[in-house]
């Protein structure tokens, strides 16, 4: 049995292991960083700590978020650094059984395949589990 923090991106359900999530926040004002990679959406002030916010839609090569939809923050820890992932909406924390897991299908290719560990076949939909290390590592 594993626990996942879930969130939505373009109506897809994604999950990251609960242990890697530091906190989940509503929309936060961001300071843009000119010249940075397009995925870097800006910097947020997280109680005095400066955290880089990555647009997860862009990272996962999903369609752009509509302009008036304010993203929410899923702050994950990666090594010493905290990084905020911008998502559409926050979901529940789900307990899932290991036996409904399946690795990504062979038809999923390219950069995105590396970032998705696999999926849990929930009753009504698929839960895509992210490999946070790969998601956060832009190089």
């Amino acid at each position, binding site marked *: 049995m594993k626990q996942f923090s879930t969130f939505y991106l373009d109506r897809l359900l994604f999950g990251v292991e609960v242990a890697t999530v530091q906190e989940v926040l509503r929309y936060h004002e961001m300071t843009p960083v*000119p010249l940075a990679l397009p995925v*870097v959406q800006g910097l947020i002030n997280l109680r005095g*700590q*400066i955290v880089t916010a*990555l647009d997860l839609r862009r990272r996962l090569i999903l369609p752009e978020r509509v302009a008036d939809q304010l993203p929410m923050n899923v702050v994950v820890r990666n090594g010493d*650094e905290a990084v905020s992932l911008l998502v559409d909406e926050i979901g529940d924390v789900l307990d899932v059984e290991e036996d409904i897991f399946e690795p990504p299908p062979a038809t999923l290719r390219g950069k995105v395949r590396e970032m998705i560990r696999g999926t849990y076949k929930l009753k009504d939909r698929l839960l895509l589990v992210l490999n946070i290390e790969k998601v956060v590592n832009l190089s």
Partner: protein
Amino acid sequence: MDEIVKEFLVESYENLDRLDREFVELEKHPSKETLGNIFRAIHTIKGTCGFLGFAKLESVTHAGENLLSLLRDGAIRMTPPITNALLALVDAVREILSNVESAGNEGERNDSALIDTLVSLQTVNDPASATPSESTAAIPSPAASDTSATRRKKKKTARATKNKRLNTAEIRADVSRPARRPQKLGEILVNRGEVLPEEIDQALNQQADGDPRRVGEILVQSGAVKPADILGALQNQLGALQNHNEGRSTVSDSTVRVDVGLLDKLMNLVGELVLSRNQIVQFAANQENSAFVATTQHLNLVTSGLQEGVMKTRMQPIGNVWNRFPRVARDLAAACGKQVRVEMAGAETELDRTIIEAIKDPMTHVVRNAVDHGFESSEARVAAGKPPEGLLFLRAYHEGGQVNIEISDDGGGVNPEKVRDKAVQKGLISADQAARMSEREIVNLIFHAGFSTAEKVTNVSGRGVGMDVVKTNIEKIGGTVDIQSKLGQGTILKVKIPLTLAIIPVLMVVVGDDRYAIPQVSLIELVRLEGEQARKGVERMHGAPVYRLRGNLLPLVYLHDVLKLPEGTNDDESVNIVVLQADGRQFGLIVDGINDSKDIVVKPLGKHIKGLSVYSGATILGDGKVALILDIIGISTSANLTGENRQPSHRTDTAIVGESLGDRRALLICRCGKDYFVGMDLSSVGRLEKFPLTAIERSGAHEVVQYRSEIMPLIRLAHVLGFGAESDPAEALDVVVYREAGKSLGLVVDQIADIVEDRITVQNEQRRDYLLGTVVVQGRVTDILDVRRVIQAVLPEYLAGAQAA
């Protein structure tokens, strides 16, 4: 590792750092005091390591201690071989200590050769074989003048016998004693040659037989010794007693060792507090509740005080780095066959420890470079009419929130012709550019990567990776480097570095919707063009924007271009140019708006942004938003200002009539009265401020303002200089804040006109009231003000108070 071993290591390292310097000092000026210090340091290490069970360390230090005790007692003289052996001892101890630190044991060293050397040196120059004059010159001892020749001779042999005795197997017990307990009066007298051991024995026997008098009294009354000699010996004993006690009580009572990690953490917390304070202060500005506003003000003051206090705990004197330079210079000079002496001024100047760490290596490199390349050989020096021994002078002082470090030598200087040829040959600049560059700019080319003029590669420097690394490292911590040289007379390297890295003053600018911070270190001046000027002031030179700043072309860079942002909405009504200095070049950065200047806490950037050279960090502003800190060097590089196609920076056009070269000085030019201009030395100016007329209050006969939680008196310069009362400007007064000994004083001027820096020669040497002289600046006659004299005349109590503080 054991706490006690850790403490031993820390203490021993401190002692060793001091030793390097004292040995070199001792070689030149033998003094009992220095010898005593060295002896005590080695003795402490020996004593503690015996206790901790470091046998190798103990045997090495023991041999050194024996030699030192003989030196201290004047039994043998200091000679270069002895200095070398003792320096080798320090190195050996350092190596063993570092082994203890890293591996927890002493390592596989064999120091028997060193120990043999140290032991053999204990016998070579027994003063009995030396001529009397030499032995007295080495360690001055007040030899009694009225004793007969025979008596003196007898005493000398007695002293020599005593020393011989010291050189036997008894040494261990005998020499460690003097430091544990001060010598007895009799011992001192015998050692000084004032009395014979038999006379002391006799006096002691008398005491044992019931004589109530003290040894000294018996000796004087029996005529064996003069009262003055006893007095001298007693003073000697007292001094030894004091030395004996110091380091035990005084130091440990008034200081505590604190873990550096803890200090760093404290500093971070204070940084956070400063940010929260800024946010609350901003919030309080819109509040009506007076109790809340008052509490906020108090919080403001306490936070500032705390910030200052914590910063101070992290301050270390620059001498901690310098201490090893005499040794470095000595060893290197010996290897190059040169003679070099190191002198220092301002070693107590304090810097943040992170900066001390950061400048350690570059500074060492500069010193090595100076000894290796800067100085000529002794013969060449003599031929050039200089003393054979070269002087390397280190100077540090605070100026305007920065620390200036100067390293100067009186060596051969940098040959601009050679540098020019080399630079052209290596393709660093074109021959055409070379022809246009001033001498000073050419000399500064030695900071270029891959540049080295040394004819041969030595094993110490000259691989062409020298000065550019120094420059990069200094600039990394927000500092600047400049070199000036006169062929045949020497070179002076000037380094300016910030006091601390954690909290820096910045200027906030606006581009588009966002604010950016520009570190004040790089800031030269602000220029605002309005109306007609704004439309015509920025000219194009084949597409490249430039501005005529006092007759010189200033290359311009649009910040929105550098950051690839859409062009600002700013209309053509005004242009804001931030004049910056990076990499020795000036350029103007055009921004949409200029906000205020403030102190900010620098925060590191995450790894996704770290690679961008145009930012050096980020900070959190009063309203909680994040702002990026611009890296001026990065910006000038990305705008292609540095590198091969860069323009030589303009020179300020201060007129110098005649060819005499005065000191290069920065002057602040102010207008007082209708068209009268005075200049004052910029180094005495703390800040430039504007105060609204409503802020001016009265205290006694003086006008004052509340400024940075103190009451600052104001002096109206126009009144003092006799230009009568010009009516006050409508809204605010321009004030030059003068600081001395932590107290501020405001000089009210009618207008702050300009800052110029150049060699300024005072033309009119006759000193009139308050004036140092007169110069011509930018074609305008300008008197130079003696600020201290003005203050002396108007507010003498300020200077008196500042001196007391």
